[in-house]
Structure formats: structure tokens, C-alpha cells
């Protein structure tokens, strides 16, 4: 905002004011990085290239980092203002989009203009509310700033987007006067009250200033009240008479709003002006020596002459009086109706030169420059000043101006002025990471490029999946809330930030981002060993490669931590497999590997439950269904050894045992052919027995177990028949 400087001297400083050469000599330099979180700037003190190549001494005290921010993040109240007005912005976008869909002219129709005018007026009202709030309560909001926003947005609606579009074609003077009277209140009620207290008010200081100002400002009641006093109590008979002539004249001053047509108004104005001429003649007839200055009369004649001059619409009088009263050029424009009551909005740039000549604007006042550009119809210039005042103002004015086709739409390559200022405002919002939704909303309102920028913000919204660690870093209340989020996410619900990101992606059609966020979530869950969640997020992202990696990780758990933990971990994955089976886009080897992990865990579950028979069935089933990756064959064969040696029953059928034998044979052959790595690495790691050679040696145990099993079959004559599983008692 305007009060923010665009530079900062970091403290503690590294060198004194003006001693840059010493700094350069010292072989130091600075570097900086911009934070993706909030565009904060991290500055570090580093070596110059020379020092980097040949560091001479250690500079322990100098490895320093500074952090800075481009904007002060919005205060709580400011955030409310931002959030509330964003609702209007969203409504405005809807209006524009829907209207454009119905035809190019719909937005500029009376209805369209009326609706836009209504929304613009909502902006004005919010600025007003904020200003009132800021001035009546103790807040962090600077009241003057919001008053300026209120004044400026209100001027914009007066000039470009009045609530009633019909006004656009009519003379603007009454509207301008109203704007002036609302935003630059003069004279104050207190001044009037003070004068009333005075018996001979015309002798009081400021009496004539008051009367001239109420006249200029069309505050007829106040003017006539005091003219009434003059007409009854002033010592000068001339003034008494003139005052009583003026009272009905002022009351009958024609105003455009009172007439059915502009023509009638013009006729009435002419007639009225000629009556004013009568007052001038009467005034001029007052003998020189009776024109005031006497004891008890005050300098009435010159002041009354100015007053009549105003009524006559004399340009030089009006501007001189405004100047003398301490008014600025805007007051000159506001009361221009006295000079020319038929000025239209389009004529404003033409009437400005004499006013600015008499009442030069203050080039250092951003507000005045903004208002001047609006009066001049220089909309691009106005946006420039508006941004200096507050990026909020430039963004919302720019949005309205483009809808009114008062600024260009951009050439396709560079963003339009509207988009530029909205994006700039979005950047300001980005300085508060908690406002990411609004940042994205505003960016996504700016075409494809804006959406592209929104993507960058959206995908970097911290997911905070680690509920407990997040809670450590946040204030009490928030932390608990986040911990809750983390917990419900872990229960498999899409909650918290993740849910909101999902929703935002869906709203703006950012499927790529949604998938990326899911993939990142899957990665984090994998890291946390929440494999079930990892699988479901991979599925949601349709990231089959990622799914493969999760499964590898799950299998790695077996290798690292053994079957018990493996079984427990896989239990969370199993439900996802069911879903995956019905998903048509899910394909290929990754699903197979997942299936293997699940079935292998089931197998170990049965072993744990001492359900030997089923376990043996599972084992053979896995081989027959071809779900076992080659690298795991040897491990499963190892598992078979105990089952083969089970004394209480013959657990395998002949064909099952043959399958096992085949696999052993294949591994043997392949290893001899040099592919041992493909088949035996996992076994070697699981058994921690050394290398391939040792693993192969270990496989001999399987061969032996198989041989014994066959021998037992022969001896006790069981298991020889296809599918036969006969228990042998004792």
C-alpha cells in the first residue's frame, strides 16, 4: 500500500553509509532467494567470486542471513475486507462470463450495466463500511486509507458506472456535486452551529465564507436560513432587501432532476438566470458609500457580489471563491454546475484546463492524481495511480474498466491491463500464505496465463499431512485443528487443505495440478509408511508408476523388517486393490505387483495363524496365477521349506510340488546362464546370507525338502493323486 517503502536497509548493516568500496574490497557479496511460500526474500552474505576461489580466512561472524517481505501481510481486519470484497469480485466474474456467453452486447445493455453498477456500488459500500469501522473503533486499519478508497471508487462509479445507466447520457454536474458533498464535507455542521449562536452572525469570522460555501455546494437550506437572518436583522436596508430577493430565487433554482426533459430544464435555467440579473442590477445600484464596512455591518457588499457571481455562473468568480475558501481543483469540478450545468461525462477533460489553471493539483498526492486521471478519462493512468494507493483498488477498478471496454483486452501475448493489476493484487495476497484460495481465485480470473500462475501457487500449498508435526509449529488453536486434519486424512478421508486443494482444482479444471498434489501426498504417505493411503492417492492420480514404487517399498518392508510388520502394513493396502480391480484405466505390471504383495501378506497371515493347509494352497495359487515377480520366486520357495517338512499332514498336491520344482529348476538354469541377479538378490537380502552364490546354495534346502516330500509321498502313498490333500494322523 502507499505507505510502504519499496526498499529496506537490512540490520545489522554490513557496511557504513557510503563505504561501498570497503565492502567490495572485503571480498563479500550478497545473494538472495525468493520463497515460494509468500514471495519473501531470503538474503545471505556470501563471498565474492574471488573469495570463493581462494577463501583466506574464516569469517564465522559473517555467515549471516536476513529475511524480508515485500508487503506487510494483511492484518485481521484487512483480511476481512479482502475476503468480503472477493465475494463481489466472484459475482462480477460470473456476471461477465454469463453475459458474454449470451452475446457480446448483453453486458453493455441496460440490464447488464445496471447489474455491474450494483456490484460496483457494493464495492463502494464495503470501502465505506471499512472506513467507518476504522474511524469509530480501535483497529489496525488506517481510516484515511479506507476513506480514500471509498472516495476513489465512488468517483469511479459516479463517472463510469452509475447505479442507473440512464444517467450516463445526462449532464453530470449534479452527480459530481453530490460526490463532492459526500466525500469532502464543507462547511462543517459545527461551523453553522457556531454562527447560529452568534446574535449578529454576520459580524462573526467566517460568516461570509460559510454562506459562500453553502451556496457553492447547493446547501440551500443553510443558505436561506442565514439569508433570512440578514433580511430581518441586518442594519443595512439594502442587504435586507437583497437577501429577501435572494431567498425565493435560491429556492427556485432549477435542478435537472426536477424536469421531465433536458429542454425544459434549459428553458427554466435561462429564465432563472435572467432573474439573477435583476439581483445584480439591484446590487450595483447600492451607492458606493453604503456597501458595508460601517460599524456593525461587516464587509457585506463584495461578499454578496461574489455570491451573486456564483449564481450568475461566472467562471472566474466560482474558481476564485473556491480557491479563497481553501478548496482544491476537485471542488472546482464539483461545483462546475454553476458555470455550466449541461456538462456531460465526456466533456470533463475539456473543462479541466481552466480549473487546473486556477487550482493546480498536488502532483505528490496519489489520490489527487488518481482522481485527475479518472476525470480526464485516462483510465490506464488511473490504474497506475490506483496501484500506488492500494493493489486492491487497481485490481477491482481494472476489472470493472475492462468490462466497460474502457481498457484494452491485451494482445494475446502480453496480459491486458486488467489481468496485470489483478495478478499484481494476487501477488500481494500471496504475501499471506493463509490467503492461498483467494490468490488462486484472482489468478484464475486472468485467462490461461493467470491460471498457469494459479497452478504454481496451488501446487505449493503445504499439505500438512503430518498432523502431529504441523501442530508443533502452529499456535495452540490452529495446531489442534490441524492435528485433527492430519488424523482424519489418515483415516482415509480427504480432509483439510488437501480437500480444499482438490475442490479448487476441480472448480478451475486444474486436473494436472490435482494429480501432482495427489502424487506428492502419496510420496509423503509412503515416507510415513501409510501405504494404504499412498496407494489410494496414487490411484487418484492415476500414477501407476508411483503405485509400483509404493508396492516396491511395501515389499522392501518385508526384506527389512520381516513378515509380521509386512503383514500389518499390507492390511491397509488390501482395500485399495479391490477398487483398483474395477478401475479400467488401472493396468499392467504395477497392479500385478500390488496383487502379489497383498496375497503374500495373506499367506504370511495364515502362517501366523498356523493355518498351514490354506497357506500351502496360497503359495501354490500365487505361482499358478503368475503373480509372483521372478525376483521373489526364491523367497517363496524358501517359505515352502517348512510347509513341505510339516509332519502332521501332507500339505501339497503332486502338481503343486511339481510347480515348486519347476521354479527351482528355472532359477538354477537362469543362474547358470548369468541371470542370477534377477532371481536371487531378494532372497540374499531377506536371509542376509551374503551374495547370489550363497542364495543359490540356500536354494538347495528347497530342493532337499522337495525330495523328502516326494519320498514321503512314495512311502506312505499319499498325495500322489491329483488334488489330493490327505491328512496323516500322528
Amino acid at each position: 500500500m502507499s505507505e510502504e517503502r519499496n526498499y529496506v536497509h537490512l540490520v545489522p548493516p554490513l557496511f557504513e553509509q557510503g563505504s561501498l568500496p570497503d565492502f567490495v574490497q572485503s571480498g563479500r557479496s550478497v545473494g538472495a532467494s525468493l520463497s515460494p511460500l509468500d514471495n519473501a526474500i531470503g538474503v545471505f552474505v556470501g563471498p565474492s567470486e574471488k573469495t570463493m576461489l581462494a577463501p583466506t580466512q574464516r569469517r564465522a561472524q559473517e555467515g549471516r542471513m536476513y529475511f524480508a517481505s515485500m508487503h506487510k501481510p494483511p492484518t485481521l481486519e484487512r483480511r476481512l475486507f479482502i475476503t468480503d470484497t472477493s465475494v463481489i469480485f466472484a459475482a462480477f466474474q460470473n456476471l461477465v462470463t454469463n453475459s458474454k456467453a449470451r452475446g457480446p452486447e448483453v453486458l453493455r445493455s441496460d440490464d447488464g450495466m445496471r447489474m455491474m453498477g450494483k456490484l460496483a456500488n457494493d464495492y463502494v459500500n464495503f470501502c465505506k463500511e471499512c472506513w467507518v469501522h476504522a474511524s469509530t473503533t480501535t483497529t489496525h486499519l488506517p481510516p484515511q486509507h479506507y476513506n480514500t478508497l471509498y472516495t476513489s471508487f465512488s468517483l469511479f462509479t459516479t463517472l463510469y458506472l452509475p447505479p442507473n445507466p440512464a444517467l450516463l447520457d445526462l449532464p453530470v454536474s449534479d452527480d459530481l456535486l453530490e460526490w463532492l458533498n459526500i466525500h469532502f464535507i464543507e462547511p462543517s455542521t459545527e461551523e453553522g452551529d457556531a454562527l447560529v449562536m452568534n446574535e449578529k452572525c454576520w459580524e462573526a469570522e467566517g460568516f461570509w465564507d460559510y454562506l459562500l460555501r453553502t451556496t457553492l455546494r447547493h446547501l440551500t437550506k443553510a443558505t436561506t436560513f442565514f439569508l433570512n437572518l440578514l433580511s430581518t436583522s441586518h442594519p443595512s436596508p439594502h442587504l435586507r432587501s437583497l437577501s429577501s430577493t435572494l431567498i425565493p430565487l435560491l429556492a427556485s433554482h432549477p435542478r435537472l432532476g426536477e424536469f421531465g426533459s433536458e429542454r425544459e430544464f434549459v428553458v427554466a435555467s435561462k429564465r432563472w438566470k435572467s432573474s439573477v440579473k435583476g439581483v445584480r442590477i439591484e446590487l450595483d445600484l447600492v451607492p458606493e458609500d453604503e456597501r458595508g464596512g460601517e460599524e456593525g455591518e461587516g464587509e457585506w457588499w463584495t461578499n454578496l457580489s461574489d455570491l451573486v457571481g456564483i449564481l450568475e455562473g461566472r467562471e472566474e468568480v466560482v474558481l476564485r471563491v473556491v480557491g479563497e475558501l481553501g478548496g482544491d481543483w476537485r471542488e472546482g469540478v464539483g461545483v462546475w454546475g454553476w458555470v455550466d450545468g449541461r456538462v456531460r461525462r465526456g466533456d470533463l477533460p475539456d473543462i479541466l484546463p481552466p480549473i487546473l489553471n486556477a487550482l493546480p493539483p498536488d502532483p505528490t498526492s496519489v489520490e489527487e492524481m488518481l482522481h485527475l486521471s479518472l476525470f480526464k478519462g485516462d483510465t490506464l493512468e488511473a490504474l497506475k495511480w490506483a496501484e500506488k494507493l492500494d493493489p486492491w483498488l487497481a485490481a477491482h477498478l481494472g476489472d470493472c474498466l475492462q468490462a466497460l471496454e474502457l481498457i484494452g483486452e491485451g494482445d494475446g501475448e502480453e496480459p491486458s491491463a486488467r489481468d496485470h493489476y489483478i495478478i499484481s493484487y494476487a501477488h500481494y495476497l500471496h504475501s499471506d500464505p493463509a490467503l492461498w484460495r483467494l490468490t488462486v481465485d484472482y489468478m484464475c480470473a486472468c485467462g490461461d496465463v493467470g491460471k498457469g500462475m494459479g497452478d504454481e501457487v496451488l501446487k505449493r500449498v503445504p499439505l500438512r499431512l503430518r498432523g502431529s508435526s504441523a501442530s508443533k509449529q502452529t499456535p495452540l488453536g490452529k495446531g489442534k485443528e490441524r492435528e485433527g486434519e492430519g488424523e482424519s486424512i489418515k483415516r482415509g478421508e480427504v480432509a483439510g487443505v488437501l480437500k480444499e486443494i482438490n475442490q479448487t482444482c476441480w472448480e478451475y479444471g486444474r486436473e494436472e495440478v490435482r494429480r501432482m498434489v495427489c502424487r506428492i501426498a502419496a510420496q509423503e504417505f509412503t515416507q510415513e509408511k501409510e501405504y494404504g493411503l499412498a496407494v489410494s492417492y496414487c490411484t487418484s492420480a492415476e500414477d501407476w508408476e508411483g503405485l509400483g514404487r509404493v508396492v516396491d517399498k511395501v515389499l522392501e518392508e518385508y526384506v527389512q523388517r520381516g513378515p509380521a510388520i509386512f503383514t500389518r502394513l499390507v492390511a491397509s493396502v488390501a482395500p485399495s486393490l479391490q477398487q483398483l480391480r474395477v478401475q479400467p484405466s488401472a493396468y499392467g505390471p504395477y497392479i500385478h505387483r500390488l496383487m502379489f504383495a497383498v496375497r503374500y501378506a495373506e499367506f504370511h497371515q495364515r502362517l501366523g495363524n498356523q493355518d498351514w493347509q490354506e497357506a500351502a494352497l496360497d503359495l501354490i495359487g500365487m505361482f499358478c496365477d503368475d503373480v509372483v515377480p521372478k525376483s521373489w520366486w526364491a523367497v517363496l520357495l524358501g517359505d515352502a521349506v517348512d510347509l513341505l517338512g510339516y509332519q502332521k499332514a501332507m500339505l501339497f498336491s503332486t502338481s503343486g510340488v511339481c510347480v515348486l520344482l519347476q521354479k527351482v529348476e528355472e532359477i538354477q538354469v537362469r543362474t547358470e546362464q548369468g541371470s542370477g541377479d534377477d532371481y536371487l538378490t531378494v532372497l540374499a537380502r531377506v536371509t542376509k546370507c551374503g551374495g547370489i552364490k550363497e542364495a543359490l546354495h540356500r536354494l538347495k534346502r528347497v530342493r532337499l525338502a522337495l525330495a523328502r516330500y516326494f519320498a514321503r509321498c512314495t512311502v506312505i502313498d499319499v498325495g500322489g493323486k491329483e488334488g489330493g490333500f490327505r491328512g496323516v494322523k500322528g
Partner: protein
Amino acid sequence: MIQTGLVQNAHDDLVTDASYDFYGLRLATCGLDQRIKIWGLDESTGTWNVEDDWKAHDAPISKLSWAHPEFGSILASSSFDRTVKIWEQTSGGEGDSLSPHSHSLNGTGPGGDLDRGKGRDKWVERAVLVDSKGTVRMLEFSPRAFGLKVASISSDNHLRIYECLEQPTLTSWVLTEEVDILTLPYSSTPSSNSHSHTVAIATPTQTHSTLDRDGPGAASASLVAHALQQSQAQAQGSGGTVGRPGMGNREADGGWCLSWCKERYWGEVLAVGCGVSGVIKIIQTSPSRRPVTLLTLDPSPTLPTFSGSGDASGPTADSDIPTPFAITCVSWAPSCGRSYHLIATGGRDGRVRIWKIKPEEIPDGEGDSEEREREGWTGVVVADFDEHKSAVGRVEWNITGTILSSAGNDGRVRLWKATAGSVWRPAGHLSVEQAEEHERADVDMEENQAAD
């Protein structure tokens, strides 16, 4: 602009790089002290606390880069010890058993200095990439779309791209590209590059490294000596292309930098600068052919823009032109759907330049397609700032490519933004110079003492 924090003694010596992670919640820093530190942001107070700290290299570390979070918590570091190292944050003690590289140099590896309790989130060394014949000056992970790849540029003028083939373990990195930037050909007609892909991954022809790379003390013994030797080696090795009149110490005068194009549409494209050439080359790599230069960005007034269709000899061969100032840093802006690219460079001449790059138009099959095809990639300077008045060491874009930061030897970090008419303008600065008396009073910040 306001100062929001300060960390005194972030390192035991000057800091050489600081890199925010994907979310901006962590910051990795490195320094002349050969250590890497990982800082975590406490969002409730806005302060940064050390999470990890370890000795990572045997010489000053030049750069750090975070991989995309989809691959996990992975960091790469490049150093004057001529190596690139890959680090991974692992949960609860799993790391050591996974990787043959998980041991630490000199016994002071990650976690060695800090007692972090719980034993979670340790940083583990996953790979050491030792192909460089010179000091490694810059590295950057590729955009996610291209997989887990990291590109580095060294003072031997070689761009090297490594790809991780086994993602879960991160131990196996293959050198997929190794290109001498100075001798890289231009491409207007890709088919003319008949060299097969194998050239790129073959052993580099430059074998003049005289230092014993394996000795742990070798690289750190004397970097000046190293630099001088290196420059001699370069002069012999590369012949006329680098032998410039009046050229002194190449390590000290040159600049080595790179930045990936963030857009996947054009395939793998990088902006690379090296040595004292004073130009940035836009290079395209692909698995099926040798890397080619699409465009050379040459800011020298005599050769305004060197289009890809131009003379293959390029500006570097012309010895009549005075030695240009080296480009020390380059940053490719995220494109965010723009129809063009923005590339920022900073140089020893104290200039920050912004280039607007337009990719080659894809002919739509109409009659004038040949005409169009010849246009190739084009680039123009859209901003040229000399405010730093001294060498610029670093340029960096924000995540949307709308704010550029530059840092120079003048002790200032400057920010640049485009106006509504797309004209780039200064947007403020941060200075380590003492403020004038009257400005000192209104300082609004709290000191964030380093945790250690």
C-alpha cells in the same frame, strides 16, 4: 518492504547458496565451511530453526537444488571439490541399510553433529557423482516431467545431466549427457546432426585434469592452484575456442551457470553459460540425438541476437571483438502458459538482462511453412539494467515469473517487475548498507537467533 528476520552465524563462514524447498517451508543453505544446513520455518513465529547440519564436501559448496517433492525429500549439492552429491531425507533409520553410499565423509555425515532425538528424518548421502574435471559451479534438478534428473555445469565447460534410474534407492545415477558447451553445434536442421547418442555419454575427450581427485585433501588444498592449472589445461585442451587475448585466470574471470526450461512442451531445454564467452546458449537434449544449440543469447552490441539458424561458428570464434564479460548467472522463468519464455541473466559487467525467447513456430502445413521453419527460436533483450554497477552474482525468478531478483557485489538485492505495458522496471531493493540516520529509527523486526 520490511525486514522480518535475521539469523546471525548461519554458517561458520560466508554463505554460498540458499535454496527454498518446493513449499518454502524449509531452506537449505551451504557455505565456504563445506557444510549444508537445513532450516525449518516455524510458521507461528516466522523464525527459522536448524533441523540438520552436516559436512557435505571437501571444498566450498557452490550450489544446492531441491528435487521435486514427488520424488521425496531430495537435495543435490555441487562443490569446488568437483563432485555433485545427492542427499535424501529418510524417516527413522531406514537410510543406512538402503544405500551403499549412506556412509559419511570423514565420519561427520548428516546427523553427526546434531542430536535430533527420535532418530527420524535423517539426511543420508545417496550418490557421489565424480565425472567433472573442474569445479562444479551450478546444478539444478530438471522439471518433474523429465523424471529425476539433475544437470550440472563445471569449469571444464561441460554440461552433465544425470538421471536416477532406481528411484526408491537413489543410488544409481547415469550420466545421460556430457557436452562441451563451447563446441556444441547449432541446429536448424536436426537431421544434420548425424552423431549418434553414444557420443554424448562417451568418455569426454578432455583429459587434462592433473589433480588427484580421489585424495580428500586435493581439492581443498589450494583452489587457486587448482584454478590456474585448470585454466592451463583448458587452454591446451580446447584450442582456439577459449584462447582469448588478454584472458587471465579463467576460473576467476569466467562464469558457469545453467537453468532448465520449466515447460515440458519443447522437450528438455536448458539455458547454459560457461567460461568467458559472455553468451548464453539455449540447448536442447533428447535421448535420440546429440544435444544441439537452439539459440545463442549474445548481448554484445555488434551481434544483437544470434538466431539458431545462423552461422555455426558463432560469436565466440571471432577474436577481433573485445573479450566479453562473463555471464555469471541465468534463470529461466516459469512460463505459466505464456506464449514466450523469459530468461534472466546477470554478468560481471554489472548488468541484469531479461530476454524474451520465442520458441520455433510449428509449421501448420500451409504454403509458407518452409519460411516459418527457418525462423527457429528467437530472442530479444526486453530489459537491460545496470543499476548494480558491479558484478551480478545471482538472478532468480519467483514461482510465477513475475518478479525477478538480482544480487550484486554492491551489497544490494534488487527486484524487478513488469508494468502494465510489459515494460520491466525496478521494483525495490534490499541493502546491507547502513541506513541514513533518520531512517534507522523505524526498524520493525525481531532477531531470529540461530538455534545453535
